[in-house]
């Protein structure tokens, strides 16, 4: 049962969705919606990378934005300093990923030995420190003012960029799904369920946690690179807590530990943000839309910890059990 059948219901739904998304720009000629969807894909990638940490390994990082920011800055600087062409763009993504991988390796090694409290705190502090460094290092980052740069000419067409991001999203999704279903991913889940027991089974849990944090960091950097291109602008706000919180919120609301959940969360949050900031023009209270998200988020943590996708999955499996259909045991977590 470990290998999902090529034509399982799940896969059929994914393919259908993909067809709709591919057809979308040709059917609907809406610039706003195309841009919004592109944004959703980018944050979907970021949120999925966060899910590897929170959902699959069970660790809370408050510093995820530093990897996102690292990707964004690498791409922006390379495109500006070298030349705005596709090879440089691809090169910058790779460089950004390598840098993010190195950074997350060291951060992980330093912090992942600690218990969840300390880890969350340290990642918060380290990313705070990097933010300050970025703000002070004006010769490179231009601080909070940021700088604009030219993207490769092909991306002037929003639809081309839309497809580029969509392709990245699909590839990342498939790779990460493979990753979490691999033996390595199983160990991560075991770490989440009971770290001590996993360790006593002979796994060096620190190694696995570091690997998880590297994977998450590298993917976050990719999302950052794409985000920079979509804006053709970077500033230090891309390294702030707000970015981490967006990823956190999407993951929690969508459903942790599902990979699909963060994507759903990304759709919900981005649409809500779009809608609420529209409302803010008439009702100033909505300028503080973070409050609404904060409250929804708190309620979700307490009453809805599985998120949208998690809750649906739980309902479905319950309903199936009540139907007395002889189902195989829920997938073994260990082994």
């Amino acid at each position: 049962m470990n290998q999902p059948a090529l034509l399982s219901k799940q896969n059929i739904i994914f393919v259908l969705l993909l067809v709709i998304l591919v057809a979308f720009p040709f059917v609907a000629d809406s610039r706003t919606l195309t841009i919004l969807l592109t944004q959703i894909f980018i944050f979907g990638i970021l949120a999925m990378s966060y899910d590897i940490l929170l959902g699959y390994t069970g660790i809370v990082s408050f510093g995820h934005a530093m990897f996102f920011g690292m990707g964004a800055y690498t791409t922006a600087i390379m495109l500006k300093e070298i030349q705005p062409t596709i090879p440089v763009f691809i090169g910058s993504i790779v460089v950004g990923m390598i840098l993010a991988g190195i950074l997350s390796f060291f951060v992980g090694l330093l912090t992942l030995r600690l218990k969840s409290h300390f880890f969350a705190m340290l990642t918060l502090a380290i990313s705070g420190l990097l933010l300050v460094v970025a703000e002070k290092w004006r010769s490179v980052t231009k601080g909070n003012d940021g700088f604009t740069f030219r993207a490769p000419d092909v991306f002037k067409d929003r639809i081309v960029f839309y497809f580029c991001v969509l392709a990245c999203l699909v590839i990342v999704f498939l790779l990460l799904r493979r990753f979490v279903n691999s033996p390595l991913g199983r160990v991560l889940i075991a770490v989440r369920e009971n770290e001590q027991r996993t360790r006593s089974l002979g796994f060096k849990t620190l190694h696995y946690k570091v690997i998880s944090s590297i994977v998450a960091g590298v993917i976050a950097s990719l999302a950052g690179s794409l985000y920079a291109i979509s804006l053709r602008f970077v500033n230090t706000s891309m390294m702030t807590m707000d970015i981490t919180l967006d990823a956190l919120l999407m993951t929690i609301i969508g459903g942790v530990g599902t990979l699909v959940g963060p994507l759903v969360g990304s759709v919900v949050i981005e649409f809500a943000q779009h809608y609420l900031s529209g409302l803010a023009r008439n009702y100033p209270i909505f300028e503080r839309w973070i409050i609404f998200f904060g409250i929804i988020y708190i309620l979700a943590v307490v009453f809805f910890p599985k998120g949208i996708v998690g809750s649906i999955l739980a309902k479905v499996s319950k309903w199936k059990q009540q139907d007395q259909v002889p189902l195989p045991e829920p997938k073994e977590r260990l082994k």
Partner: protein
Amino acid sequence: MDLLISLVINGLATGMLIFLLAAGLTLIFGLMDVLNFAHGGLFVWGAYTGVFTYAYTESFLIGIVVAILTGILFGFIMEKLIITPVYGNHVQQILITLGFMLVLQEMIKVAFGPNAIPVSVPTYLAGSWEIGEVIVIKYRVFIIIVGFIIFGIFHYILTRTKIGLIVRAGVMNKEMVQALGINIKRVFLFVFMTGASLAALGGMLMAPYSGSIYAEMGMEFAILGFIVVVIGGMGSFSGSLLAAILVGLAGSFMAYYVPFLSLAVNMILMAIVLIFRPQGLFSMIRREST
């Protein structure tokens, strides 16, 4: 020499403000095993309610009282609404307290406006003394004195009263405290409200010291508070005073001599402590198990 003294006074004053924040954090962590990421929210709410009362009544003292009352009230609400439902689940705790921190921070902007608000030192604490060559700013000395008084009071409570004994015993072994017939949840609430009121007081005292208040200062100071808690040892009250002074002094000296490092020095201190002595420099709990 005069430079040295003013750097020391600077460092001590900053240290005391951090101490007021960290004292609650460390006790709440030690006793309840809860790292409250919303603690900075109490700090900033104390500052705003206190400052607005101060502006309205023109009495700094009433401002302080209102700040403390705000802390107690918010502490009560927070413990009941935010902490109790996720008690014992670390990941949920971290997520929910951080969420609440954001709500508190944004609520400040709704209630008091998004812009920084200037605050002046009350006339009787304004100005400075000149002792020989040295200029001593009165308000900083005031903060230091208040800090030591608070430390003295709480040190007395923790070591000489029954409730203090119970709190210290609870930090060491919660289960046993309950098995001796003590309702630990009430002790939790008491400690949480006390810690909240100290943070709120810290925020209020901070306001004239820095000259202005803004919504994000809660998070900024909370990070310093976390660093102090790690350095001092989770659950150690005296440890948090010593660590806060250390962090305050390090910050003040580095800002003068090695400005570039001043941002990083606390982080580096914390990293060193975490690598070589993760239980903290002055820890009271031996790290055996979770």
